[in-house]
């Protein structure tokens, strides 16, 4: 059972009226893996997630969740979900919402664990308050607690930080890292590319309902490089930098094994070194590049 991936989705397709929202999307999320789902608005990310979780009927394609076909409700027993549109029963208190979800998940989770879930998202002191009086950000926090409360093995987060303040975003990043440590698989759809780059093992980029690119960060972003800001570069010094690309005084080279040795070498040859920083194409640049190529 645990050999099966957390999510296996194959050739998902969905049309709404005469608009194709998802057009043959396949991907997998390994156990304990954090997968980033990226793409512009309307790319079909939410539709893919909803098909996976049985909220929307795919026109074609198959999904397995944690080793079971997604048409079997039991496949969702260990899945936590924060929808893009997060709303919870306004007439219940935060703790009652969690209690409801625990019961629907068929689990026995004690008061203390529920309180911990709320504390994790910073709502410990609002447990008894009605959700109807919560701000959007607080509701999104509650949604995170709901997604995490029933001991999930897979957590699906659709834009989990859309309503959160900077502090909340940092909390979510910490949450994601702790899920990763605990071996919980995560499917993360977020526009905060910096966060995705920090926590995701792999990325799938959707555009116009298709997979435009996918792979590990290293595969997508290429090898790491080093950026040096230099003046008084002699021909002899340039030779030891070869191969390099140059933009004014900034030279970019493949990341060498021994950075201090390279710098010492350059200084010995009379080069003035102003700055040295590791560099890599950012995921954001790569995303834009993929989307431009695609259009």
């Amino acid at each position, binding site marked *: 059972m645990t050999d099966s991936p957390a999510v296996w989705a194959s050739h998902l397709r969905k049309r709404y009226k005469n608009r194709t929202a998802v057009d043959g999307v396949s991907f997998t999320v390994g156990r304990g893996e954090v997968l980033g789902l990226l793409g512009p608005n309307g790319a079909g990310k939410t539709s893919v997630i909803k098909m996976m979780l049985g909220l929307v009927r795919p026109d074609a394609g198959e999904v397995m969740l944690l080793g079971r076909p997604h048409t079997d409700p039991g496949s969702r027993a260990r899945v936590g979900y924060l929808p893009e*549109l997060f709303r919870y029963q306004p007439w219940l208190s935060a703790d009652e919402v969690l209690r409801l979800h625990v019961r629907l998940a068929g689990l026995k989770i004690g008061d203390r664990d529920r309180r911990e879930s709320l504390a994790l998202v910073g709502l410990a002191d609002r447990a008894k308050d009605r959700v109807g009086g919560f701000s959007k950000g607080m509701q999104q926090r509650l949604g995170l607690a709901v997604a995490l409360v029933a001991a999930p093995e897979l957590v699906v987060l659709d834009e989990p930080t859309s309503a959160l303040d900077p502090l909340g975003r940092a909390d979510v990043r910490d949450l994601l890292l702790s899920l990763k440590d605990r071996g919980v698989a995560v499917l993360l759809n977020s526009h905060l590319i910096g966060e995705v780059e920090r926590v995701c093992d792999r990325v799938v980029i959707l555009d116009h309902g298709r997979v435009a690119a996918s792979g590990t960060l290293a595969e997508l972003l290429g090898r790491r490089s080093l950026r040096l800001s230099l003046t008084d570069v002699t021909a002899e010094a340039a030779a030891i930098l070869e191969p390099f690309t140059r933009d004014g005084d900034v030279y970019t080279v493949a990341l060498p094994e021994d950075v201090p040795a390279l710098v010492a070498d350059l200084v010995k040859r009379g080069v003035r070194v102003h700055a040295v920083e590791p560099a890599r194409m950012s995921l954001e640049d790569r995303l834009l590049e993929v989307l431009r190529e695609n259009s």
Partner: protein
Amino acid sequence: MTIVLTIAALTLQEASRRKVLRSLGVLTAVLLALSAWGFSEISSDYGGLTSGEAKVAGSTVLNLVMFGFSLIAALGTAFLAGPTLSGEVESGVALAVMTRPIRRMQVLTGKWLGLVAFGTGFVTVAGVAQFVIVHLTVDYWPPHPVTGLALLAGQTAALLTLGVLFSTAISPMASGIVAVGLFGATWIAGVVGSVGDALGNPSVAMVGTVSRMLLPTDGLWRGAMNSFQDPALLAQIGSGVEESPFLSMQPLTGVYLLWAAIWTALVLSLAAVSFQRRDL
């Protein structure tokens, strides 16, 4: 089954915490107070419920008031049924709930059960209160109170099942309005039918019969009325009574009750199919 009961309990909790309950309570109290006043007037005018006229007046007013309750129950549950399904779909509350390891059918059944319990509870409390008022003011006790209340509860259940069906397909407000509109339409068709009966016009009478088959609320309501009124009184005053929308000559047949049950089951299954196919 735990899932169904959990959802049913949640639906009851929702009903009790929403404003619907308060409005229902106020309406009911107003109607009870008005009827208490009305009955005490009848009692003083006729000097007790001895004469035939007073009995007709008493039975008619009792049925009128019970009709008021059935209307309140119908409105209340129909306007609860809408928000509880399509409202949750529209607002997004359904998203997190439906991704738990549960079937949509279980959610639908649970909501339905909760609403039926709510409707039955309301009809029982309001009905019994009304019986007590009638008993205290004009010393009248209906011959079959339990049957009558059960039929009223059945009427409420039939209507809210229809409301649930509509709410799987259209917006919450619209589903409530359409359900209540149909309820009113069959009641009027029922009145038209009984006028046809009284005039001996079979094609006009058909209107009532057909509408009672299409939506059993009016048929169940007539059965309920029949259980609330004194049987001796109808025999006493004879024909002409059929024209009144608030008196009923015949008790319900077993076949009709069976049909009402099948009808409700059919509509609920349709709702389940419709909800199953819906994109959330």
